[in-house]
């Protein structure tokens, strides 16, 4: 009846146009063409180039003592340095201080600064800056959560511009570790400022290899080489940290050669890369041990977890190798002590509990748990052995919980999983002690002191002995460990501590996972295999040979 051709044509034209719109835009894209270069050739170290890295979060500020989140410490680590630092083997070595002495009574540490140090703005760096930083971190007004270690210092002095001396009331073994973690701030720029609100947090001036060049909120942070760096010159001229919250997007950017490095998950590392040989040609995979471990913790104040037999039974019922194989695809290690594998603090005589469901059943029977009513679930005094496993929104912990739940089910324990968002988890359940079993992880410092986590005095809300562990022998060892500065004697103390912990089994150690960085082959100088400190410890020595650099125009 009608002839809609003319109107139809118009309509169809605009329809086709909006479908083509994205393609038109796409066609205006720049043609990529990587000249064929030999990525595996052994180039010699040289200056220059830009490294593009990806971060999932954004720092809230760049003053290390105020902004504690990992994104902030990662960037601040490029800009500031401390008096001493850890080397490849995780031993302490010189940084801003060229040497340090410990007094005979072990209560005083004297740091001798390197002469001729300068801040990035040219002003000399002296012991006055160290004193200023210490005063800042111990000031009541400063909103830092990390002041506790530094408040133990009785007296801090600067007898001359190159000497910084601190005295404690009694020997404090973790002291050196705390000084390795305190990044020195410039007195001349921060004096008189309110450290909590100063603009310095967005425009920092440091003394390390890089300085802040530009910070585009939510998009990227670029760092440029600091010519006045205290430790010498880094090879790579510029580092750009792109903020890409989603790891699936990060992976795509890595594939498209828009970023040079990212941290992979086990599937990407062990399944995707091997299935695509062309990826392996341009991207190198590394493996390093992380600084923590994942565990299943019991609330020792709740029955029946106060019964050691029940805890041991659950320990035997969980197949930890299965968790490592399933969750980490084998990219992790079992642990028997709360320390990073390969360090001297790990007691080599300790072995993790194996997978032994029979033994588990037997132990539970001794504790009075049997299936009296034939419903498949163990019970005691008419009450079934059932509880909730709480964890936060972390994929690996969730998967571990699923595996644990199944193994527990097999021996007759009825466990349910509850995944919670972090703030609720901590606020509603951890702080109040209102939980039965949790799957969590600890991220550890290099110092073996674990007072905060295991000492019986640390069980108040907000403190970290969240499972409520109380063992006077362990308490004594922890206190002793803080006073003993001799590394060998300390080692013995913490070996015994680990042994007692394993015997008591207040937690079930699940695994220590590997970090899995993937870095483009254009970045040379990366140690492989990774030393105990990880591959990043010498990132200032990495270099990008000129033929392999990105088109400099595109990355300026």
């Amino acid at each position, binding site marked *: 009846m009608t002839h809609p051709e003319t109107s139809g044509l118009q309509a169809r034209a605009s329809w086709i146009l909006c479908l083509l719109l994205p393609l038109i835009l796409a066609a205006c894209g720049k043609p990529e063409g990587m000249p064929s270069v030999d990525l595996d050739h052994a180039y010699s170290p040289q200056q220059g180039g830009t490294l593009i890295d990806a971060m999932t979060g954004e720092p809230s500020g760049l003053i290390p003592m105020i902004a504690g989140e990992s994104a902030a410490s990662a960037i601040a680590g490029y800009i500031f340095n401390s008096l001493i630092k850890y080397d490849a083997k995780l031993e302490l070595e010189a940084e801003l201080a060229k040497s340090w002495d410990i007094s005979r009574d072990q209560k005083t540490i004297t740091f001798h600064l390197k002469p001729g140090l300068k801040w990035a703005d040219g002003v000399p760096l002296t012991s006055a800056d160290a004193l200023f930083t210490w005063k800042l971190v111990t000031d009541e007004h400063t909103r830092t959560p990390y002041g506790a270690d530094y408040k133990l210092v009785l007296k801090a002095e600067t007898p001359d511009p190159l000497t910084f001396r601190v005295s404690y009331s009694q020997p404090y073994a973790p002291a050196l570790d705390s000084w390795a973690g305190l990044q020195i701030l410039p007195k001349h720029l921060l004096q008189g400022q309110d450290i909590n609100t100063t603009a310095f947090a967005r425009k920092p001036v440091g003394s390390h290899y890089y300085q802040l060049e530009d910070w585009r909120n939510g998009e990227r942070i670029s760092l440029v080489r600091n010519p006045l760096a205290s430790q010498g010159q880094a090879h790579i001229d510029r580092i750009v940290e792109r903020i890409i919250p989603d*790891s*699936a997007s990060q*992976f795509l950017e890595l594939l498209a050669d828009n970023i040079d490095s990212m941290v992979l*998950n086990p*599937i*990407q590392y062990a*399944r*995707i890369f091997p*299935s695509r040989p062309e990826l392996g040609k341009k991207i190198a995979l590394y493996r390093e041990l992380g600084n923590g471990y994942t565990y299943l913790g019991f609330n020792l104040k709740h029955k029946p977890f106060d019964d050691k037999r029940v805890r041991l039974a659950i320990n035997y019922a969980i197949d930890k190798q*299965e968790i490592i*194989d*399933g969750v980490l*695809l084998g990219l992790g290690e079992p642990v028997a002590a709360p320390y990073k594998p390969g360090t001297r603090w790990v007691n080599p005589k300790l072995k993790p509990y194996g997978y032994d469901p029979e033994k588990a059943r037997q132990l539970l029977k001794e504790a009075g748990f049997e299936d009296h009513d034939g419903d498949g679930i163990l019970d005691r005094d008419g009450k079934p052995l059932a509880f909730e496993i709480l964890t936060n*929104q972390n994929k690996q912990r*969730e*998967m571990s*919980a*699923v*595996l644990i*739940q*199944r193994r527990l089910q097999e021996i007759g324990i009825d466990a*349910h*999983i*509850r*995944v*919670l*968002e972090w*703030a*609720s988890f901590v606020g*509603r359940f951890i702080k109040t002690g209102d939980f039965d079993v949790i799957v969590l992880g600890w991220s550890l410092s290099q110092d073996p002191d674990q007072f905060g986590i295991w000492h019986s005095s640390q069980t108040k809300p907000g403190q970290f002995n969240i499972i409520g562990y109380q063992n006077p022998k362990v308490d004594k060892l922890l206190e002793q460990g803080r006073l003993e500065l001799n590394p060998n004697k300390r080692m013995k103390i913490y070996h015994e501590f680990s042994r007692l912990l394993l015997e008591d089994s207040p937690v079930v150690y699940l695994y220590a996972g590997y970090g899995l960085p993937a870095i483009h082959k254009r970045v040379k100088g990366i140690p492989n295999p990774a030393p105990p400190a990880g591959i990043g410890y010498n990132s200032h020595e990495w270099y990008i040979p000129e033929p392999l650099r990105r088109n400099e125009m595109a990355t300026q």
Partner: protein
Amino acid sequence: MNRALSNPLAQWGCAIIASILLLAMFAPLIAPFDPDAINVKAILLSPSGTHWMGTDGLGRDVFSRMLYGSRISLLVGFVAVGIATAIGVILGAVAGFYRGWVDIVIMRLVDVMLSIPTFFLILAVIAFLTPSIWNIMIVIGLTSWMGVTRLIRAEFLSLREREFVLAAEVLGAQDARLIFRHLLPNSLTPVIVSFVLGVASAVLVESGLSFLGLGVQPPQASWGNILTDGKEYIQFAWWLSFFPGMAILLTVLGYNLLGEGLRDALDPRTTKQAKG
């Protein structure tokens, strides 16, 4: 009703939904594996003769999980939208019928609810309660009744002035009779349509919640959480995204087709023989 069912859109919609419903109902009979059966030696296998839709990150059979997951998605859809529709019809009818300050109060309540983002409400409530499937349904229901309220209210406002209603009033009919015998039956079309479309929406909301980690608890399977699991390895383990994605697509498509088909068929204004 005949017209409704002879509409091809509605027919297709019905066919799709019926098939999914059947699969969901008979899941225990059809599923070749236990959906929770973990096998760490069979992680992320691609679809094959044994595992028709491949396996997931813990070696569980995706096809079985999809079947059981369909129950979750459909259940959430129905119950959540059922709650929302019930609330919406009641409030909308009262507002449209009584008008005056009752109407004002109810519409302002709608305004308040619309001003608070759904996600925020859901997060706060779920953080407070357990993120269980029932709480999710209740929360989705409690946050999506506003559209239905407006629809019913608008229908009632128009119908209120029509002759047959005025006639009934003159004849002395009580309020309740007016509402239930005269107004509601004539307003049902938008209710039915919005119910059907709402189910589609609820399925999408559930998958969005799973994406944000606020969905059903592990190890329970839902299409949303299978889909989310596959996000990191989309180019590699394509089956983890493709099958739940297609399932959600088909379900939502089915409900939308049915809804639009019903709307087309039942709405007197769009039929060729317009009553004017």
